[in-house]
Each structure stands twice: as structure tokens, then as C-alpha cells.
């Protein structure tokens, strides 16, 4: 049978994880993935391998859009499978382990795992799972103090695929660093999912020469070039190996149509009907608090998360007509400690709007905005900045921890003690 049999200690560890996850969530202190997962792995280091026995898995990785693509994939596949997933952005070992623990003991028949995995952790986590499909989205600069430079990540992905020839790959053919990695596999479905930020891909990963992006298909004089896509996007129409569907998404921005195209690529490889997959994806209106509008003291606030220059290109697309924009920048470990990347973001595009510089590194942002010619005010607390907006329609754009902090603030406006409990637990585990 496919039910996983666990030893006594493992059962206790899994039980504890569930309790911890429930506690974290019901206290409103987080999404309940990272901390319980870390406890589980501390007690039970083989948890990922043991708990995922006979569970076929899809892994979604890349610098940007992992969480959104995973959420869309979870929805798209839910018509054909019971889906086990870490849809809250907890994408290192702890997050995957926790998602598995929460379903442990259930029958895994007709189940599939869909996991978002940090780009640096892909070669670590994928071998611990029964990985069937890997979806590779994009690679660009992000958290350079923690994640290695993009070329190294691409080479590590490639080495993993070379060592695991049975893994099928769904890859973005518009990103040369993704193509370099995917070429380590003999079984690739290519998706034209776009490349927002060319800067990190200018020099050829094969020969070091210059890649020519002037035509619709990029190429290098050494012969390395964009593969012909199997999946393409034209406005809202996505064609998948000759079949077409219309993506009527509730999520804003053209980048999300590209994310949906990646998901349809996954569906095609798994033999899931793309029409019903597309219909299911249209139900997704928010992803771990992102994209949705929330009411904050009379302001209608679109919640956006962007952590690096490539992500910002998408944000400018989604801010739409909102006359006020609050940008909150932190530089904690999960954000990357160095906010130098702000200088690679064309903030000039915010011209004409009311702009607030916010977050723990509001001063770095403020200097950057001055040089971009954007008049703005500095209000370090994002909630206060939102309240100070002149207009009703506001876009809030935070990087990772500033976004999470605002969500928590909104959830437990009257429960500051919970933040303290969480901080304490974090310290004990570290």
C-alpha cells in the first residue's frame, strides 16, 4: 500500500509538527511552515525522504514567481490529484518537511506533491523527493549575500539534471541561464515565459561572449541559442503543443499569464487536461496575501511583493493606476542584507505618483529615489505610511520581510505579545 509506515519517534515528531503548525497559524504569528518544519527536521532529519515515499512530486524553482506559480499549479492539478503543497513561500527544507508532515498518514493514492523550492536548495531537496517534474522559471540577482551568483546556480541545476535523467523538465526558454541548466536534461518542454531583466543574462553561460537579444529569439555566436518553444503566450491566449486555451486570470499583470503558461507546461507533461487546468487557475485571486486588495483605514491597498530588480519590472505593470505607492524595504536575512540592488530598479517609472519610502532601510530607498528624481516622504512604519496617503487607491510594495511584517501587523493589530512569542521561539531554535 502507498500509506507510509512510520516508527514511533517519527510519529511523535510529526504529531509535534502538526501541533506547532496549528499553534503558529491560530496565534496569527505566521503561515505555520518555517518554524514547525525546523523543529521536525531537528527531531527527525530524514523526514522529507520518509514522508514522501511513493508521492510523485513536481518542483517549481527560480528567482521570481515561485510562490505564485506553485499556487497556480496546485489549483490546476487539484482536478486530477490530491495535492500536497507548500503554498506559503516556505521553500527551504523546513517548509517542504512541514507540508509533508501535515498530510502524513493519509493515503497517497492519486496524490501529487507540488513544492516551491528555493533555487539554491533545488539540488538538496529534489533528490530527497520522488521528483518527476522540475519547472525552472528564471534566474536573476537576488540576495547575493546568501544565494550564490546566478551562473553558479545554473551550473548546479544542470549538474542535478545530468545526474537524474528520469526527471522531466519544464523550462523557460527565454532565459539563457535556465536554458543552460535545462540542457543538462534530455527531456525538456520549453515554455516561452518571458525575461524581464536581461542584465544578468547578457554574457553567454557557455562561452562568455555576448548574447544578442535584439531579435525575438536570443542567440550567441557560439551556437547557444533560444530553443523553439512548445508553449507560447499571445496576450491571454496560451498555446500548448498546438492546443490553445484562454487564460482569464484573477491575478493582475501579464507576468501572471506567463506563470500560467509554465503551469500548463507542467500539466501537459503530466497528461492533465489543459482546459480544466486553465479554468481552475482563474479561481486563484490571491497568493499568500499577495495581489489582493485590503481595506486599511479607508484606503484600498493592493498588496504586492517584490524582492529584486526583476520582480520590480512586474510590479510597475501591476501598480496600474493607483495614485499612491508605499514602498517598504527591509534587509533582514530573508531579504538579503545588502539593498544595493535598489540601484538596478528603474524607480523613475513611479514619476507622477505620491510615493512613500518605508521599511527598515527607508533611508537607502530615499537616497535612491532622490537620484531617480522621485519626490517622496520617508515614513519608516509602512502602516503609518499607508494611513498618510492622500488617495484612496494605494499600492503597497514590500520586499519579503517587510511584506510579511505588514501582513502580521494587519492580522494582529491588538496582539503585539504574539510577535514576541514568535521571536523568542525563533531565538531558541537558532
Amino acid at each position, binding site marked *: 500500500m502507498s500509506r507510509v509506515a512510520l516508527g514511533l519517534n517519527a510519529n511523535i515528531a510529526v504529531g509535534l509538527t502538526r501541533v506547532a503548525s496549528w499553534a503558529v497559524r491560530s496565534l496569527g504569528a505566521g503561515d505555520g511552515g518555517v518554524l514547525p518544519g525546523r523543529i521536525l527536521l531537528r527531531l527527525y532529519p530524514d523526514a522529507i525522504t520518509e514522508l514522501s515515499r511513493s508521492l510523485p512530486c513536481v518542483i517549481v524553482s527560480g528567482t521570481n514567481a515561485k510562490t505564485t506559480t506553485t499556487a497556480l499549479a496546485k489549483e490546476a492539478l487539484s482536478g486530477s490529484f490530491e495535492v500536497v503543497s507548500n503554498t506559503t513561500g516556505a521553500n527551504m527544507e523546513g517548509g517542504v518537511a512541514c507540508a509533508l508532515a501535515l498530510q502524513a498518514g493519509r493515503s497517497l493514492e492519486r496524490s501529487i506533491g507540488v513544492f516551491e523550492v528555493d533555487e539554491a536548495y533545488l539540488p538538496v531537496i529534489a533528490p530527497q523527493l520522488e521528483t518527476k517534474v522540475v519547472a525552472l522559471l528564471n534566474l536573476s*540577482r537576488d540576495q*547575493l*549575500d546568501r544565494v550564490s*551568483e*546566478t*551562473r*553558479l546556480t545554473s551550473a548546479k541545476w544542470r549538474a542535478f539534471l545530468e545526474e537524474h535523467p528520469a526527471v522531466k523538465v519544464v523550462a523557460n526558454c527565454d532565459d539563457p541561464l535556465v536554458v543552460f541548466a535545462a540542457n543538462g536534461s534530455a527531456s525538456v518542454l520549453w515554455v516561452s515565459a518571458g525575461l524581464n531583466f536581461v*542584465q*544578468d543574462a*547578457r*554574457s553567454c*553561460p557557455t562561452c*562568455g*561572449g*555576448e548574447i544578442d537579444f535584439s531579435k525575438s529569439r536570443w542567440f550567441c555566436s557560439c551556437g547557444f541559442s533560444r530553443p523553439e518553444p512548445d508553449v507560447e503566450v499571445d496576450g491571454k491566449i496560451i498555446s500548448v503543443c498546438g492546443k490553445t486555451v484562454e487564460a482569464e486570470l484573477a491575478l493582475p499583470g501579464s507576468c501572471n499569464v506567463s506563470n500560467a503558461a509554465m503551469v500548463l507546461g507542467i500539466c501537459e507533461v503530466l497528461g492533465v487536461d489543459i482546459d480544466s487546468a486553465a479554468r481552475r487557475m482563474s479561481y486563484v485571486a490571491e497568493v499568500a496575501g499577495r495581489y489582493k486588495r485590503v481595506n486599511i483605514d479607508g484606503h484600498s491597498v493592493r498588496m504586492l511583493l517584490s524582492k529584486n530588480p526583476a520582480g520590480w519590472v512586474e510590479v510597475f505593470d501591476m501598480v496600474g493606476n493607483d495614485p499612491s505607492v508605499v514602498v517598504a524595504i527591509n534587509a533582514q536575512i530573508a531579504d538579503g*542584507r*545588502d539593498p*544595493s*540592488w*535598489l*540601484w*538596478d530598479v528603474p524607480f523613475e517609472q513611479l514619476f507622477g505618483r505620491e510615493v512613500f519610502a518605508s521599511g527598515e532601510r527607508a*533611508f*537607502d530607498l*530615499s*537616497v*535612491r529615489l*532622490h*537620484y531617480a528624481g522621485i519626490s517622496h516622504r*520617508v515614513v519608516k512604519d509602512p502602516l503609518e505610511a499607508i494611513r498618510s496617503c492622500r488617495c484612496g487607491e494605494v499600492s503597497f510594495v514590500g520586499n519579503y520581510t517587510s511584506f510579511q511584517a505588514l501582513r502580521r501587523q494587519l492580522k494582529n493589530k491588538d496582539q503585539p505579545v504574539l510577535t514576541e512569542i514568535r521571536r523568542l521561539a525563533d531565538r531558541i531554535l537558532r
Partner: protein
Amino acid sequence: MSDTIRVVSVLPDLLGTYGDSGNAIVASKRLALRGYQVELINAGLKDGIPSGGDFYFVGGGEDGPQSKAAELLRVDAVVERALESGAGLLAVCAGFQILGESFIGPNLKPQAGIGLFSCRTHRFDGPRSVGELIVEPVGSLAGLPLLTGYENHQGVTELLPGAVPLGGVLVGNGNNFEGRSDGAVLGRAIGTYMHGPVFARNPALCDHFLSLVLGELAPLGAIPLEEAHRALYDERISEVYKP
């Protein structure tokens, strides 16, 4: 000679990984605010590096592109000739390494650099140097306020006899662990490990650099831009440096 000041960002498509292109933006704007006509040139891979610039900026990047950039910088010795005819140069991290006598190529073998700065960069086998950096300027830069930045590199740079560092390291690693120094200064050329970008973090260093080529510059006064710089500078110093 035209009146326009030419600011050249050298190969930002190869050496633009760590936001160092901000240095050229900061320098250009601070010149424009003082009434200079400024042309900011982003000299990419296919454009080639123009001669006749007044300021050259070389930033940090990844190992493969770094080695490619060294190859391109060697062609026609554009930067050395510009320096001889009075230009200024700021080189950060990977850019600083390739302007030394040797650095480590992507194959982990030593590779010849441009040889402008008297230093050699080796690969450090221990952990990468990552974190905030506070540097006390020395030599011709003594008297400037403490400098703040962010370092992120695997290299260890050994200054050869006669080389002058940018400053002494108070927080972080800089060139190496023993020497407690960061970067190098040679005439109007400055090398450093400080990202941030370093001129956005330290406008006083930017103005000093500009004055090396253009002579004394008037202060910008209490404009909002300078107040923003002040707030950032004070915050970084007080968060990072506890004497």
C-alpha cells in the same frame, strides 16, 4: 575639448551584479547639480570602452564575466591612457581585482590583471567575506569621514610594497584578514571592496573623487538630497560601528 563631462560606466552588463552602477548615477547627478553638463555613457559589451572620458566606473560581477571584462579592458589600454591624460577611476570589488596585477579566474587559476594597482588577489579557502564594512580613510584621503559599505567577495587582496590602501578596516574584512586595510589609491584611481553603492553611502568620498579631476567643488548645501544622504550615513554608522 568640449565642456561636457563624460562619465563612463565600464561594461555594466558584465560588472553590474552588485548595484555598483549607482556610483556613476550619483557622480553624474552631483556634477549636474553643480551646473556641469554631464554625459553618462553606459559602455556595454558591444559598444566598446570609449576613450576620452573624464570619469570611469568599474563595478563588481561574477567570476566568468569578470575574466571577460579583464580581457576587454586590456584591449587598447583605454583606461590607463585616460588616467594618464587626467581622468579619474573608481573600481569596486571584481573591478578592483582585475585592475591589480593578478586575480583568480573562473578556472581557479591566477590570471593577469591590468596591473594598474600594485596588488594581487588570491582565492580565500574559508568563508566568503560578506557583511558591512567600515573603513577609516588614510593617505591622501585622510580627513574624510569614516566610510561605510557592504562587502561580498571570496578574494583576498595582498597589497604589494609601495601600494597605498584606501583606508584601514574598522568593521569587516576588506582586502584581507591580517592587513586590516581596504582597497587601494593611486593618484586619481580608487579601488575598494565597498558596495552600497559606495558613493550613495558616502557622498563625501564621491565629491573628493570628483575634485581630484575637476578641482575644489562647492558643497551642495542643505538640499533634501543631502539630508537624505545624511540620514542614511548616520544610520549606517550607528548601526554598524560601535567603537
